[in-house]
């Protein structure tokens, strides 16, 4: 059977690929509310990665800040201005 070490490294690699997909979808999206949601998915993948790298202090900072406060502040800003990005180059 595979050892525990290979299993943990495989989960780390999978989380890296999930965060790469989420960052690419966030950058090439015209609707800004969906871009903020993809960025929150990437932050959740990073929080799980911090846990696997044995840093529990950073998980406790990162989950309220990047999944709770950044989307809240940016959604307030989107509500007060435009929701769709204009025509890009």
């Amino acid at each position, binding site marked *: 059977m595979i050892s525990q070490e290979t299993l943990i490294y495989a989960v780390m690699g999978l989380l890296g*690929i999930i965060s*790469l*997909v989420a960052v*690419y*979808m966030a950058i*090439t999206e015209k609707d800004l509310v969906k871009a903020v949601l993809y960025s929150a998915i990437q932050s959740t993948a990073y929080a799980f990665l911090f846990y696997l790298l044995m840093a*529990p*202090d950073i*998980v*406790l*900072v990162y989950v*309220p*800040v990047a999944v*709770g*406060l950044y989307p*809240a*502040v940016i959604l*307030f*800003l989107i509500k*007060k201005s435009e929701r769709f990005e204009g025509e890009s180059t």
Partner: protein
Amino acid sequence: MKGWMRAVSLLSIIAVTVALALGTASGGLGYVLPFPGVRDLAYWFLFTALNPSTPLFTVMSPEAVTSIVWDYRGLDTLFETTVFFLAIIGSMALMRGIEVVKKVEERTYQIGMSPIVKTVTRISVAAILAVAASIALHGHLTPGGGFQGGAAAAVAPLLLIVVFSVYFAVGSHINKKNMLTIRTIGLLGVGLTAFAVLIIGVIHGVGAYVFQNQPKATAPIGLPADLFGSLTSGTLILFNFFEFLAVAAGFTIVFLLLSVPERRVMEILEGGEKDEH
């Protein structure tokens, strides 16, 4: 047309990444696996964090990261708190004069969201505040600390502003002036705790340093490491409590400034112009 172009470029980025990793794994770059030992500086921090046999270097706290943040490198945290304070003050100066006035409203139970959401929010706000206080006050024993507890406790006023309306929040004394008072108490507490051992040393006629926690070789005075048998690690518990107050109040000010309705903002900005002419 745009859909499959995005998918093709995403797959090509993933293919490049996997190819680079394969190239490194079959002997491209020396060694990439993590090293089997820690560096000398890390060995020193891990060895002296809770060690009664070296009483002149220890911090008496089993949590190595909090002892680095508030004791070994306390000045870094002092300047980080200053940067955060300057960001909040800058935002308040940009939005000077823009505030929500409490309306006299008889039917306040009809503004905000539906009763189901309001009932669930009442229960969750109490739970969030309890968990955040526990994270902040146990920062010297388990992972946690002042900033973690403050960021988690800032979610509760955000929920109150969004679910019940901002007029209800201002009416129940969560306004800018009270939050600024709490934030000032927190920052004054952090500053006084940094000078506490120095003041106690001057009173007893013994030399001491700023940001000192336990007795050192040339300054044999410090705060007690445990209180009635349970470990409190000197200044760490006071730092965590005051930082929790300061951070939670700071975020509440940011949300109060951001949630003023745009119609009211335009009224204030145009009303000021008309007064001048």
